[in-house]
């Protein structure tokens, strides 16, 4: 029997729509029957290599692996690895793969997971690379939308905040352009517009897209409002960050004219772009979104460990 090929997840476009469907269905099954999966990754090890701080992504990866009966090793900051001594990503990966069966990598430099995948003999998952991509957050977002709205088709998605450095936005757009009937509404200050390659992706996908500089005007047409934080760590100039950080703040009055079923999502962490008063609002879904992140990562780990298609 042929050995299934080694797969990585670097970019959400690495997955076909069928493969995304398979992952979402597996995630649903894990939620419905968790006991069936408690030993599914027994004796397997996940290495979490986080060169940047993280709460949700790292802990949800680790919780996912532990709930599958596997174990976890790794580091949670650049300072606690040999990167401080100048070790390259390639050498780190060639070393870590001696100790782990699968690797989740977060790195501040864009494209670091591509380097990792080129040198790895075990699956590599991009857990966020600079302001570039964050495919497992996108799987989380797709699972949230599908479970909360029942479909991924024909939706109007509003993306608000830092669309330039917001890697979760870039990956979500790359995924949603492939679903029929998607419309995008992009709300950001001019300096934080989505990069041209992301806008190009929307055009190539043939999706309707409008750009707006006010949130209030667009809220009534949205099925999903995806809020993002202005990312201080991506700015070379602090003064620009300070000027832009409060551009869009979501509060309860702004949701007054939203559709009844509209959901508010956020990859978190939030700073002040979303009032805590929104947390109790029936539109809010961002904490359940964080929970789904664990289940979809369980599904992904299982699929990649099983050498997809086995």
């Amino acid at each position, binding site marked *: 029997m042929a050995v299934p090929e080694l797969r990585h997840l670097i970019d959400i476009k690495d997955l076909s729509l069928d493969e995304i469907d398979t992952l979402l269905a597996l995630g649903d099954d894990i939620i419905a029957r968790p006991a069936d999966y408690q030993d599914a990754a027994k004796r397997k090890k996940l290495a979490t290599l986080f060169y940047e701080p993280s709460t949700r992504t790292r802990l949800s990866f680790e919780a996912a692996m532990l709930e599958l009966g596997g174990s976890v090793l790794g580091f949670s900051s650049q300072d606690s690895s040999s990167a401080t001594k100048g070790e390259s990503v*390639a050498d780190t990966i060639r070393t870590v793969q001696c100790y782990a069966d699968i690797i989740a990598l977060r790195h501040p430099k864009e*494209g670091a997971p591509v380097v990792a995948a080129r040198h790895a003999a075990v699956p590599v998952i991009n857990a966020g690379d*600079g302001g570039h991509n964050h495919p497992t957050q996108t799987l989380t977002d797709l699972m949230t939308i599908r479970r909360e709205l029942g479909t991924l088709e024909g939706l109007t998605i509003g993306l608000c905040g830092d669309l330039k450095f917001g890697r979760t936005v870039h990956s979500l757009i790359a995924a949603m352009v492939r679903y029929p009937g998607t419309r995008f509404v992009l709300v950001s200050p001019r300096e934080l517009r989505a990069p041209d390659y992301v806008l190009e992706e929307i055009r190539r996908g043939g999706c309707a897209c409008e750009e707006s500089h006010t949130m209030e005007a667009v809220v009534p047409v949205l099925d999903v409002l995806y809020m993002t934080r202005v990312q201080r760590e991506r700015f070379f100039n602090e003064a620009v960050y300070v000027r832009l950080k409060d551009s869009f703040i979501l509060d309860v009055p702004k949701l007054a004219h939203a559709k009844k079923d509209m959901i508010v999502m956020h990859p978190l962490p939030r700073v002040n772009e979303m009032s805590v008063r929104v947390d109790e609002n029936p539109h809010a879904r961002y904490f359940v979104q964080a929970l789904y992140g664990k289940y979809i990562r369980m599904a992904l780990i299982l699929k990649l460990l099983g050498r997809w298609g086995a």
Partner: protein
Amino acid sequence: MKIDSICNGIVLDHIEAGKAMRICAALGLESLDCTVAIIKNVKSEKMGRKDLIKIDEMIDLDLNALGFIDPNITINVIREGQLSEKKKLRLPRELFNIVRCKNPRCITTVEQEADQIFCLVSENPPLYRCAYCDAAYHGK
């Protein structure tokens, strides 16, 4: 001006005027021992002005580098004084260690000896993107 015709070698024709020296550098022609004629600003009916390079030896050409610098070049292969083959170039699908990514956030700016890879995403107008960070390169 008279340039001797070549017996066995390669003529790069229809080079956009002004690009001959860049091609010379990209192909490493200055290190060859054979005769190399670089002819600039030749009158051309089709192009107005063009550059031309004659290499009096059969050498391996880096077609990717050549296609990237100027996809409209015609390669004439000369054998025993006769034109034996004519090749047209295309924009290469991938640029491997030909241009460097200028995005300061790209991993290639810090990773030791990482290959520089750009992939073609659009032919007209030409547009390449870094395989690591998606930064655009317009070929200029």
